């Protein structure tokens, strides 16, 4: 039986296709080239958005890409995955009179795709070698951003990565409908073109690597270790077959190939209200699940996912069930209890119902894996840093999802890595 005649030709295809040249021309000409533009102020990496869009309008696509990547070396990924509806595009002044912002994210992709498609020398040059050596732990957005900036400034960088591939969440944690094809790996290859960066895979902090050794062997250390752990539901049946962390599911989907896609159950229940839950739900639907239900214990207003993402899930056939808390999992599916808000507090109503589920994906938050972080001050589940991204341990800096620098977004991690690199550089060359 055909599960769903409406599923896309390939579950691995882009949900939002690239702009055509004609669309990019029309859209770029909607930009007003604002002075001290609101979109730039809303971008965590401070990309000079009016300038890159003007370059697109004049046919200077390489210049546009250079503007983007100078501020955000992962501008290609951010163009695909940033919640622009709450960042640059929310700030766009075109909203005021027309209620339709310039499609900044898609234009950014247009420019960076052009750069990645063309052959040529790396955009950036390395400064004179400083002889300083920096260790970076984690080859995700924060780590690679930090490594690239350090290499540009003339330092030698060794990146330690536990997994077999670089890219972190770009490679393992973003649904393919956002990050189609091998873009994450192409972006890593682009970043490494700068030179001066060595990546050692299969090296995990706490296994064959210790903070103590790194501090002894390098002039500085940057930790971009992300959030390795997953929260538990703490309900009966959580350990059953067919129950999986959404992050693990997405990782399996990403590492599978389009010709042998991951099998999904006929009915899938995703628990959680953040981006990961939305990613897993939409991707499960695109992989052929007949019914996908996203269950969240509070209301839509409290979800971590933006209104745009919620709508995206709905238009892709995902049913959103709010005010429903999971209480048990069995062979048939999941039992939920209705909840409601009372004076801002979530309370149970005692009323229960069940949903059949062949597959249950948990997306109820990730946690910092504290092993091997001895000596670091940790508060609120995050590594504590100062304004220069310095941790409580000398020579050790940190950024990305493992610190509390802002929202847990790729773009924030890239900015953290960049700012930490600049701080390390100031320290090493002082």
């Amino acid at each position, binding site marked *: 039986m055909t599960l769903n005649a409406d599923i896309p030709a390939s579950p691995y295809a882009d949900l939002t296709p690239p702009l055509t040249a004609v669309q990019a*021309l*029309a859209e770029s*000409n909607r930009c*007003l*080239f*604002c*002075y*001290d*533009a*609101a979109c730039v102020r809303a971008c965590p990496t401070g990309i000079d958005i009016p300038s890159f869009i003007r370059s697109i*309008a*004049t046919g200077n696509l390489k210049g546009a890409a250079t503007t983007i990547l100078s501020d955000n070396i992962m501008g290609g990924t951010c163009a695909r995955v940033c919640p622009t509806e709450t960042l640059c595009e929310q700030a766009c*002044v*075109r909203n*005021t*009179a027309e209620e339709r912002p310039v499609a900044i994210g898609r234009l950014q992709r247009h420019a960076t795709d052009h750069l990645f498609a063309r052959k040529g020398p790396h955009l950036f040059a390395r400064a004179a070698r400083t002889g300083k050596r920096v260790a970076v732990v984690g080859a995700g957005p924060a780590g690679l951003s930090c490594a690239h900036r350090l290499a540009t400034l003339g330092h030698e960088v060794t990146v330690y990565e536990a997994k077999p591939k670089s890219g972190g969440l770009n490679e393992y944690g973003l649904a393919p409908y956002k990050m189609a094809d091998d873009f994450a790996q192409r972006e890593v290859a682009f970043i490494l073109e700068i030179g001066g960066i060595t990546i050692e895979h299969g090296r995990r902090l706490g296994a064959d690597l210790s903070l103590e050794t790194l501090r002894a062997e390098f002039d500085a250390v940057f930790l971009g270790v992300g959030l390795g752990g997953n929260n538990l539901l703490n309900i009966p049946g959580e350990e059953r077959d067919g129950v999986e962390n959404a992050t693990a599911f997405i990782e399996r989907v990403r590492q599978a190939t389009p010709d042998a896609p991951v099998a999904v159950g006929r009915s899938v229940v995703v628990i959680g209200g953040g981006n990961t839950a939305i990613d897993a739900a939409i991707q499960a639907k695109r992989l052929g699940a007949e019914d996908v239900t996203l269950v969240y214990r509070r209301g839509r207003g409290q979800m971590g996912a933006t209104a745009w993402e919620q709508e995206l899930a709905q238009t892709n056939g995902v049913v959103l069930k709010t005010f429903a808390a999971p209480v048990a999992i069995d062979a048939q599916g999941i039992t939920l209890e209705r909840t409601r808000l009372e004076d801002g507090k979530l309370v149970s109503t005692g009323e229960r119902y069940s949903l059949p589920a062949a597959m249950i994906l948990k997306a109820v938050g990730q946690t910092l894996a504290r092993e091997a972080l001895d000596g670091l001050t940790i508060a609120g589940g995050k590594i504590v840093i100062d304004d220069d991204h310095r941790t409580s341990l000398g020579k050790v800096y940190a950024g990305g999802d493992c610190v509390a620098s802002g929202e847990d977004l790729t773009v924030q991690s890239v900015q953290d890595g960049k700012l930490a690199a600049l701080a390390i550089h100031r320290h090493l060359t002082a």
Partner: protein
Amino acid sequence: MADLRSTIAGIRSPNPFWLASAPPTDKLTNVVRAFQAGWGGVVWKTLGEDPPVVNVSSRYGAHLDNERKLIGLNNIELISDRPLEVNLQEIIQVKRDWPDRAMVVSLMARIEEEAWAGLARRIAATGAVDGLELNLGCPHGMCERGMGSAIGQVPEMVEQVTRWVKNATNLPVIVKLTPNITNILWSAEAAKRGGADAVSLINTVNSIVAVDLDAMAPTPVVDGKGSHGGYCGPAVKPIALNMVAEIARNPDTAGLPVSGIGGVTNWRDAAEFLALGATNVQVCTAAMTFGFKIVEDMISGLSNWMDDKGYATLDQLSGRAVRNVVNWNDLNMNFSTKAVIDPALCIDCGRCHIVCEDTSHQAIRIDPGDGRRIFTVVNEECVGCNLCSHVCPVPDCITMQPEENGLPPMTWPNDPRNPMRAAAAE
């Protein structure tokens, strides 16, 4: 409902919108389509003596804005490249089928009386023509053969050719003027002296419209090379408006009927030409950009606007702005206007601030607002230059408001700050 019937140099048409002598009026098929669409008249594409000219392949170059909107067009096409008799037979047929539309024929010849007179007589002999238009303007190709602008740039020749043609037939003669001169009045006065019933202007502006940076040649590129051509379209309208106004306010040419040409794209452009003294307008580029259907909005737009303003006929409108076109020396030095920014309409783009700050008078202040910046004009610094209002993307957000200063009007010649006035008084 305003009466749009128009008469220029005795030539009547149901509305003041004619197609100018150019590719759209090259042959019967096009002209019939134009009349079906509602155009009031045509000036048939310039006829010359046989054998007809031969045109090159690739003929137009364009000046596009960022959004690929055509704001200027340039051509290196010559006059009609079809035999004279073919054109004349088609003219006869079109006039027979469309007797209420103006049929004017453009002509061009060597600077010899018999060439001009003979051609004019052959055209007049059709009995189908309401008037003649002398092409003394094409700035490319034909001028290298001593025709077009080669004649139009010499006032004595303009006068001579006009007289030859006037003497050859009884048809009204419209002299089409080239803008590629230092002073349009010299050519207009020469045409009047020669007996012209009207002038039409402007012909195209001599131009290189663009350079193909791969071919390293001007566009349009003809086998690796290009030539200067004739520029027209919305971008030349300001040049044309000034020349029309110069003729209208010059005592020696005042009253000489003018057919306004140059970038007329919509009814508002037409109203502006009429206000500066034109009796009707001729259109080419707009039709070549959008097709003939645009005349529908030209007619209804002009008619509706005239109704709103209380103009019953074109005569009531024509020339209404002429008396307000003065020399700089006649402007009121005591007049003061200031920009005012409406915060309710402002979308916070900051363009007014940065252009004033970078390129003008540092007269727009930014204050942090509640989520949106507040832009305020600093009256002491504002000179009323209008730049901010022009760059603002929101209509009516920045307006210019005259300042009451109680001072009487005073021109520069009477201004105490004028050193020449002080010298004259001594």
